[in-house]
């Protein structure tokens, strides 16, 4: 790629600024196109249509190829029409095959999109020389060259691909905003939507058409095969970060745009395909989301597991101290084991325990808390004893772990359902609510 060689130079700063405008346009194109794909991709992911998005990404190729053969310009209306037609043909064929007794789900889609893609490649290969397509472009786009094909807009030379991307983004965003409620409803519960008389089929058709349009817009930037990365990865990352659909959409667009820019820069830095690096950066974004997501991320899950373990250790110590008091021994010896000793230390720090001659005593605060834990324990034993067919000697172990998960309101409900039992099945009294 001569252009890439031109751009790449040992001293990045000098080379970069010299061609800053080119880079800016390329990044803008990538960002805009990725944002459009991210928006559409959100709905695809939530509706479990990711692989159909992949299929459409592949299958628009023959539509685009035919349109170009008929004189359509890349990104022009004829090409978009061709792509949309190909997308709808894909979907229709997949459904028709299944309805006519063919294979279900993925297999049918697999047959259709590989066939259409192969057809497209053959058309491209057989096309007369001089048409705007070639195999490399098909597979991974040509982002670095895009800034050189410009159209004048209000006196400024804007790259055609960027303009097409912006128009696509605006149109799709407007369409999304207009039909958002419908799309959201259908995404979460298609059966209910259908029962409510909403035009589910039309919504789906609209979504798939939008996918085709977004794929076409990204075709020049990242080619056919990597459109799936733009469609699915930012949306999947966004899904890990939030549960609200509109926030997911916005996040997907932002993550996509970010990936587009950073990916392009990385490709420039390492002198390789922009489309590939964009996909890689998006993958890293997904990884980061999986790690760092507030509720579901691996890090936060690990942290929450540790916190539960710690809480259990502390509560167990408090309960042990209280039971010890109940049995007449007012203080608890120091424990063996690192965790229990650390828990004792922590409880002392929080004012739940005081030290008394190498042993531990409950403070008033600590006693109140400990009572609630033992109350939870014994209420649960009583409730289980009444409502589950368990012998008395099987009640302690379950209560041992459930006691840490009961709140005040639940304790009152348990009490209400075990009216008449003031002591647990072992005959020990149940402390009243604080």
């Amino acid at each position, binding site marked *: 790629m001569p252009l890439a060689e031109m751009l790449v130079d040992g001293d990045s700063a000098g080379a970069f600024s010299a061609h800053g405008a080119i880079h800016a346009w390329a990044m803008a194109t990538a960002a805009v196109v990725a944002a459009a794909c991210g928006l559409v991709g959100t709905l695809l992911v939530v509706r479990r249509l990711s692989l159909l998005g992949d299929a459409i990404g592949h299958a628009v190729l023959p539509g685009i190829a035919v349109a170009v053969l008929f004189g359509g310009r890349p990104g022009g209306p004829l090409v978009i029409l061709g792509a949309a037609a190909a997308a709808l043909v894909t979907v229709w064929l997949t459904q028709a095959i299944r309805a006519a007794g063919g294979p279900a789900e993925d297999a049918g889609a697999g047959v259709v999109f590989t066939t259409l893609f192969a057809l497209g490649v053959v058309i491209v290969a057989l096309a007369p020389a001089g048409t705007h397509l070639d195999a490399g472009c098909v597979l991974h786009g040509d982002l670095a060259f895009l800034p050189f094909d410009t159209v004048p807009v209000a006196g400024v030379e804007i790259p055609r691909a960027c303009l097409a991307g912006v128009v696509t983004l605006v149109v799709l965003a407007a369409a999304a905003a207009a039909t958002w409620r419908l799309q959201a409803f259908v995404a979460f519960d298609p059966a209910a939507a259908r029962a409510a008389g909403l035009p589910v089929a039309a919504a789906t058709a609209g979504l798939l058409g939008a996918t085709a349009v977004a794929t076409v817009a990204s075709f020049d930037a990242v080619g056919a095969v990597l459109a799936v990365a733009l469609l699915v990865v930012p949306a999947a990352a966004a899904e890990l970060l939030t549960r609200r659909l509109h926030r997911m959409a916005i996040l997907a667009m932002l993550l996509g745009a970010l990936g587009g820019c950073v990916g392009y820069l990385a490709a420039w830095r390492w002198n390789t395909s922009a489309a590939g690096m964009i996909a890689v950066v998006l993958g890293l974004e997904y990884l980061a989301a999986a790690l760092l997501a507030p509720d579901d991320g691996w890090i936060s899950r690990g942290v929450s597991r540790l916190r539960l373990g710690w809480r259990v250790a502390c509560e167990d110590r408090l309960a042990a101290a209280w039971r010890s008091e109940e049995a007449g021994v007012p203080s608890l010896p120091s424990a063996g084991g690192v965790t229990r000793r650390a828990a004792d230390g922590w409880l002392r720090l929080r004012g739940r325990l005081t030290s008394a001659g190498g042993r531990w005593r409950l403070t008033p605060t600590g006693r109140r808390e400990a009572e609630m834990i033992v109350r939870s324990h014994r209420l649960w034993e009583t409730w289980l004893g009444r409502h589950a067919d368990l012998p008395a000697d*099987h009640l302690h172990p379950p209560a041992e772990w459930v006691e840490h*998960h009961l709140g005040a309101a639940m304790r009152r*409900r348990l009490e209400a359902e075990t009216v008449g039992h003031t002591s647990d099945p072992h005959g020990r009294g149940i402390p009243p609510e604080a």
Partner: protein
Amino acid sequence: MTVAAAGVQTVVDGSREPLLEFHDVTVAYGRRPVVWHVDLAIDAPCLFGIIGPNGAGKSTLLKAALGLVPVVGGRVRFFGAPLDRVRPRVGYVPQRETVDWDFPVSVMDVVLMGTYARLGWFRRPGSKERRLAAESLDRVGLADLVGRQIGRLSGGQQQRVFLARALAQQADVYLLDEPMAGVDVRSQEEIFRVLGELRRDGRLVVVVHHDLRTAAEWFDRAALIDMRLVASGPTAEVLTPDNLRRTYAGQLEILDEVGRAVAERGRTS
């Protein structure tokens, strides 16, 4: 060790072990407990029904016994041993919906699958296995449908194919998951007849069942499950109005909420 002549080998090392025992079994999906602390022992061959409302965990309990769903508390024992040691003695009839009936196998192919475990790796079923499969099909009344592709069967016939497959396992304990679901009355009676024969031959038959009326007629012993064991024992003693109310009127919310709190590693409100 003694071996009963035509019945079930239940005497192991001189001590009597329950045929099937759930000891404080808690089953969870992910981190969320859905069946709590079930304590159940079945000592003698009988027709045993596991009854309860939808979503109560009956199928889950069965699957946990078979190791298909992890047991997070307690243990399940067959003949006093863990399942892995006595697998050839336990037969399973899963729910019909678990299978794609468009799969390209015939009735005979499916019933032969019951013989695979005893064949082991790489060996093909031979004439002995085919004879066994044919006999099993005969017992359930499907002898003339041997070559048919399974999609071309009615619901009751499909269920009977599954039953024949289990019979071909030649097990001592049979676990059936909703075998009567979506099957017309006539076929249900057919299936029940076969199960009765199994019981007479000294096998234990455990059936997850949803219909109270037929449960009262068919099963010798039963257990009422609604996320926990409500009652177990002889059917007439178990299916009392009080027990039924406790099962079907649902104390579900408490277990549900506590289960959710456990899954989220927090507290209920």
